[in-house]
């Protein structure tokens, strides 16, 4: 029963959707503060390459090395996102161009490739990788076992992250302030909230989480290093935030839907269903377009819209 195609599909869509959860929740936090960061793809690749470097160079037990590597990936991506924060918060640059510049700088033909090349990371298998944990020995439970109790540690971490993000946004004072900053920085400023500080902090948090999502690629999905290995996941994460109406719990649903399309290709191929792999490969991208169209129509926008000041620099003197 646990080998049935539905169970395998659901379990693997969670597996493939998890990096998107991290990156999308990160981008969501940044966007809630009013900062649009299109550099997610670049930050994920920085996270992927530095995390992979770490597992190759740190000695120790699996759990310790993997924790450190994931953290290092996150921190490296956080440092990358600082560039975007300085440019868009302090220097009031165009956030779209700045984010694109970040992806060019760090992405598949930039710094991540440079680091991988200088450190000679290509073509070696990872010395440590995330593997599925048999939680409470329940992995054999029919249907639910493989889906809920036989995933890797980062999957469980991503569930915790979504709960934390929800509690943070809707149950804490800082979360309330954050939403105020994203909706109306003028009002927030008058209330005595440090707008710039909030925008910096959440852009950096977005970088950290994108880095963790990137690390998932080089430590869990394909445990090695290839230039541009996230192949557009960063862009899908940005689309997911819109898809999820800027709500953390919905990013989870969206990410698994995209994970489903990524895994559908592998599963159908393994079962020898004759469909061109390119068509299946294109499905997540076409899905994003279709979903965006539905989400962008009037009724959906009115119910739950974007943070009102998204992408607009805040200049106190010019309010």
């Amino acid at each position, binding site marked *: 029963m646990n080998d049935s195609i539905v169970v395998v599909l659901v379990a693997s869509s969670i597996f493939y959707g998890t990096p998107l959860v991290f990156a999308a929740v990160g981008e969501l936090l940044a966007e809630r503060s009013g900062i649009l960061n*299109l550099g997610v793809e670049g930050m994920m690749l920085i996270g992927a390459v530095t995390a992979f470097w770490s597992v190759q160079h740190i000695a120790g037990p699996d759990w310790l090395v993997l924790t450190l590597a994931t953290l290092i990936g996150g921190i490296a991506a956080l440092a990358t996102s600082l*560039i975007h924060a*300085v*440019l868009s918060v302090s*220097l*009031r*640059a*165009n956030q*779209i*161009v*700045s984010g*694109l*510049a*970040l*992806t*060019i*700088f*760090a*992405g*598949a*033909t*930039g*710094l*991540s*490739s*440079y*680091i*991988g*090349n*200088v450190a000679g990371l290509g073509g070696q298998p990872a010395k440590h990788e995330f593997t599925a944990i048999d939680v409470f020995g329940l992995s054999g439970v029919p249907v639910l076992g493989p889906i809920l109790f036989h995933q890797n540690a980062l999957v469980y971490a991503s569930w915790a992250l979504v709960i934390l993000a929800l509690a943070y946004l809707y149950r804490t004072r800082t979360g309330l302030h954050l939403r105020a900053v994203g909706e109306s920085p003028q009002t927030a400023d008058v209330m005595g909230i440090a707008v710039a500080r909030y925008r910096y902090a959440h852009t950096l948090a977005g970088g950290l989480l994108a880095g963790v999502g990137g690390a998932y690629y080089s430590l869990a999905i394909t445990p090695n290093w290839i*230039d541009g290995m996230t*192949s*557009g996941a960063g*862009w899908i994460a*940005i*689309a997911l935030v*819109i898809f999820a109406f800027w709500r953390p719990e919905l990013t989870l649903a969206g990410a698994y839907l995209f994970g489903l399309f990524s895994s559908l290709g592998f599963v159908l191929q393994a079962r020898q269903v004759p469909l*061109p*792999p*390119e*068509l299946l*490969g*294109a499905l997540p*991208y*076409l899905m*994003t*377009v279709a979903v*965006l*169209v539905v989400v*962008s*129509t009037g009724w959906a*926008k009115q119910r739950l819209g974007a943070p009102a000041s998204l992408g607009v620099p805040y*200049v106190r*003197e*010019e309010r």
Partner: protein
Amino acid sequence: MRIQRRLHTPRWLLVAVPAGSLLAAFIATAVVLLVAGNDPIYVYARLFERAFIAPGALTNTLITATPTLLTGLAAAAAFRMKLWNIGAEGQLYVGAIGASGVGLALGAQAGPVIIAAMILGGVLAGAAWAIIPGLLKAYFNTNEIITSLMLNYVAGLLLTYLIFGSHSFWRDLSSFSARQFPQGKVLSDAASWPTFDLGVLVLPFGFVLGLLAALLLWLLYRSTIFGFQARILGDSPSAARYAGLKTRRVVVAMMGLSGALAGIGGASEVGDFRHLLDARGLQQVGLGYTGIVVAALARYNPFAVVLVAFLLGGLTNAGYSLQGPGFPSGLVGVLQGMILFFALGGELLLHYRISFTHLSLSPLGERVSERG
């Protein structure tokens, strides 16, 4: 420290800021090189030599500059009216598919006929691909950044499918080895675009098309009604609506124009350089994304796009020819990103003045600034 908006920008700053940004970018990249254990002066000297000085370097620089000139114009056209078409990458692929398809189909015709048809094929294919996000933007208010970008991946997969995943019209199936190692059908000699030998350098036809397109784009924005409408729409969408502009029509048309320019880039890749549909090669170089860098650095001015495309073309060309030990891959992207960051930061200095003053509060609680 206070940042105040400038009422007018002094002339000298318009030159000093970009030059300073460029210098700062090279210095920052030098730091990256030093950290990785490379000698920056040596790397830069070789970069400059291979880009502009060495025999044949200028010709190669023009070859790498040609597609990014066209994708740069594509981005500049759309970005000028704040239409964020970042799909030039995919529009270029589709343009290459269209142009090579037409070129293959007309194999027996005379040169000028094939070449004209290939340009048209590239234009139509690129425009059609770009009009999809354009229509979605115009009628459903869908974010064109994401949709145009998603279509890049779809176009890439289409390219892969045509050469690697199927026995399509574009694929060479004439010999056993071609069936084992998939590649595109080679176009007839008549479909090769002409070149112009100017002594020190050889000008590819695609570059000439790019120059022409830059001139036309400048004229379009400067002295046509459509360009005027696009400028209004870019500067103030609400004003455009109140003035009764047919906003949707302008958005769709501008997307089409932008895609058409990128499509010519794809056609030029086929006609000028590759002479077949090179599914893998086209996807390795990121010509569309580089176009965005070019347009942003040129601040969406078509003539500046020509200059920037040439300079970045030199950088990329040198990057290719130097790749190997002592010259790591990814360096060119790092340098391009740095240049963009500093150029963006430099914008602030053009529009704002930074003054160092002390802030103090008057008894009434108003902020009073005193020069310190």
